[in-house]
């Protein structure tokens, strides 16, 4: 694919623009902004990746990963306002899952320690971890608010903070990880995953593409379960003080 063919590909932008204008959907401005942003952002990333790949310096790889963690944290933290220190809890979660997955991948020689492998796989791991974090925080906040009476009951009967929110934690961890597990059951039957499709289009052997896709799927399983559990166990203690009292003021502030 070259610049000329990419220009032709803009027909796929023109079609929704014309349809939006004809049916008065009012999507023209957003479609144009989205198109321009995606072109600029992806080209910047493309050139950046090319630079990192060419230099093969670990400092640049680390820098790229840090930017990914920063962006993912910025995106997910809005959902966890009620949890004190959510920013650092998210950074810890993303950094730890990134470390563990790269440690296994490189340690067991599953993938080589080069930018070509480390950066795309890190992007998938951190991106997936971010989505999981948002799903988990959304659910956990809701569960804590709706089950406040149960939390108070367990505390009043002599339970610990962990016992008081155990059900809410388990429900939230399950609810946020189930979509990942469920989607893996039908993968390949309904649609080919993006990474595999990309590799096949780029000319890779389909079986080789399957190997890599399976690797990514297994990685995402670890990411999903680990993110929810770690974030859950880092978050719940901030809802209580040292006298094991439930800090419901944080919930009230959310309603304001």
């Amino acid at each position, binding site marked *: 694919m070259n610049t000329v063919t990419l220009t032709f590909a803009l027909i796929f932008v023109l079609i929704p623009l014309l349809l939006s204008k004809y049916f008065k959907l009012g999507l023209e401005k957003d479609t144009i902004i989205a198109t321009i942003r995606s072109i600029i952002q992806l080209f910047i990333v493309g050139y950046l990746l090319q630079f990192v790949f060419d230099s093969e310096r670990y400092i640049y790889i680390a820098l790229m990963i840090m930017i990914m963690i920063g962006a993912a944290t910025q995106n997910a933290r809005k959902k966890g306002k009620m949890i004190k220190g959510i920013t650092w809890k998210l950074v810890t979660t993303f950094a730890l899952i990134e470390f563990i997955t790269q440690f296994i991948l490189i340690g067991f020689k599953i993938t080589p320690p080069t930018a070509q492998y480390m950066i795309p796989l890190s992007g998938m791991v951190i991106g997936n971890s971010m989505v999981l974090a948002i799903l988990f925080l959304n659910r956990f906040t809701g569960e804590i608010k709706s089950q406040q*009476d*149960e939390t*108070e*009951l*367990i*505390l*009043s*009967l*002599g*339970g*610990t903070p962990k*016992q008081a929110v155990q*059900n809410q934690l388990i429900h939230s961890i399950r609810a946020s990880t189930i979509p990942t597990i469920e989607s893996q059951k039908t993968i390949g039957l309904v649609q080919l995953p993006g990474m595999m499709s990309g590799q096949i289009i780029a000319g890779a052997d389909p079986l080789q593409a399957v190997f890599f896709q399976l690797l990514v799927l297994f990685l995402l399983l670890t990411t999903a379960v680990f993110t929810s559990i770690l974030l859950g166990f880092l978050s719940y203690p901030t809802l209580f003080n040292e*006298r*094991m*009292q*439930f800090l419901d*003021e944080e919930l*009230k502030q959310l309603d304001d």
Partner: protein
Amino acid sequence: MKISLKDAAIYLDDISYEKNNHSILSNITGMIPKGKITTLVGPSGAGKTSLLKLCNGLTSPTSGKIYINNKRIESYHPPSLRRHVGLALQQATMIYGTVRKNLALPLTLQNKQLPDNQAEELLKLVGLDAKLLSRHVNDLSGGQRQKLSIARTLINQPDILLLDEITSSLDPISVKEIEELIDMINKKYRTTIVWITHDLEQARKMGDDVWVMMQGQLIESGPITLLDNPKTDTVKQFLKGRA
């Protein structure tokens, strides 16, 4: 200090409590005598429920000191304090599951089990049929839920029992049964009872002592007969409005 702390199950020393910058309780000093039933009366918003939650350690006062059986409340480990000072609320919150699961909850929290014979004995004590053990809590009536809630609190063998309007939404027969139950618990186990009620007749019938609270303050406290001879005009007005 004239009040003898030795006879106090709970002693509050100049307690104030604020929440979200609103004053809920201000400068409350008073004692709940050991082994007696003290009723807490006053209009809605007087801070009665907040007071019970302070005594159970679910919240802490903004200023002032609380003594439970002569010891500062902070000297207790919170779970052990809450087992020691039981709390039953009007809504009788249940966890999803059977009567047995709910009854055993205080023991489950300590990784202990509730033997069948003890479960049956407890249900009998609060006037519930042992056959209910395997029933789902959603199938219970309001009165049955309240009795179960009391039985569940009793598993911890508290020596102080805090009751927050536990009969306010019940039919007259259930109210009478619960009054008899609380009276029996007080006499049989010498459990100190603090009972919030909106029903002044109930307060008179059940209480040895009474606290009258209004707008976060303790206006009068003493033997139950003070309801017949209040000293302050505000309490007289309150009792007139309720009579």
